């Protein structure tokens, strides 16, 4: 079999990136900004660092909010999110469905946050819980959905930490009752009760907006 297409160029290999240079970087960066998750994940699996960085830009903030509510601490959440991306990068080969990369990352951040909670539990049983930061968003030009979300967010933050954690692990992390129980070191029956109460409080808040 012979190569019948393309011209052979006699120039040597340029180190680093072959191809059209700076302009290409800009095109590439823009393309990645709007590319969907499945495509970015497929590239990341092949070792494309920029595609992985784009996934981190896109999903990092959600992972951080989630981890900081689970842990009650922003600083720890930062560490956990960074650790999660590193683990994600190492385990990309195990990602069966690239389109589910967000859920997969959320799963990793869940388990990393739980590890931290376990370490804490073994050291002390005082719940070191920061009060939620005041919402600094400006009150003008607020739409109904925003108001509802803000109200629900406040309602979530008012729940006792264990209720919040159960709800977050179930609804955001997709954990089963048994897994939540193991993660939090509680009996399954307790998890059931905590989850039901968390849902009840949030339902009340949601219905107030109907």
């Amino acid at each position: 079999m012979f190569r019948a297409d393309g011209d052979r160029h006699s120039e040597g290999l340029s180190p680093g990136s072959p191809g059209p240079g700076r302009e290409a970087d800009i095109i590439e960066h823009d393309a990645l900004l709007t590319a969907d998750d499945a495509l970015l994940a497929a590239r990341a699996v092949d070792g494309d660092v920029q595609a992985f960085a784009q996934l981190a830009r896109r999903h990092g903030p959600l992972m951080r909010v989630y981890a900081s509510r689970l842990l009650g601490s922003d600083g720890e959440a930062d560490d956990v999110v960074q650790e999660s991306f590193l683990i994600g990068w190492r385990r990309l080969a195990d990602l069966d469905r690239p389109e589910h990369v967000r859920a997969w990352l959320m799963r990793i951040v869940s388990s990393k946050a739980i590890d931290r909670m376990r370490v804490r539990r073994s050291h002390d049983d005082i719940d070191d819980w920061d009060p939620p930061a005041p919402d600094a968003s400006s009150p003008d030009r607020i739409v109904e959905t925003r108001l509802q979300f803000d109200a629900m967010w406040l309602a979530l933050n008012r729940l006792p930490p264990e209720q919040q954690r159960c709800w977050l692990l179930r609804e955001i992390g997709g954990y089963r009752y048994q897994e939540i129980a193991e993660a939090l070191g509680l009996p399954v029956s307790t998890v059931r009760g905590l989850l039901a109460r968390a849902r009840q409080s949030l339902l009340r808040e949601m219905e107030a907006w109907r």
Partner: protein
Amino acid sequence: MTPDRSAASAPEPGLDGHTLAELGEYLDRGRTPFDPSIEGSAGCRLALANLSRLAGLSTGLLSRQAESEPARDELWIAGLLEIIRAEIVSGRDVPVAHPDPALRLTLTEAAVRGIVRRAGDTLGGVVMGRCRLDGDVDEPGAVIRLDLSCAIEYGLPIGATVERLRHRVRAELARHTELVVGAVDVAVDDVHPRGGAADV
């Protein structure tokens, strides 16, 4: 803590003897096995609908909060990249001939994939996805197959664009490597509007 002495686990008026906890668990099981006493109650069905709606709002609730936070600064991203760059798996070695037989030149598989991605990304209207090299890339002269995926800009003729992509990839690989490229299989996974994401 008294988990089971709460309002949520006491039968509620309007739920025909069921509790909100029960309904939540029923929903978490995907409403299986079918429970006629729940499904037959208008009050329970309404509560299930509300619980579903709440579950549906949950990611939006956190996402909205995440949006109101300052964006991830590039410094943080740069720090992350530095860590992961150190862990790049370069894959197999692709030999490159050199006039001096004593010199052994190789390109890494990761570099070859990079050449292919760049060839596609700079074509215009195409964003590359997957790039797999099938075959013995480390054997000089062995025929290899390329397995590619990409997204194409809405409105471009798919067949012709894929043909341009194939040609471009072959040309770039011929220019930078000595791989003998057999089939170049391209899967178009996504069509995206010009200058915008297909879905965000």
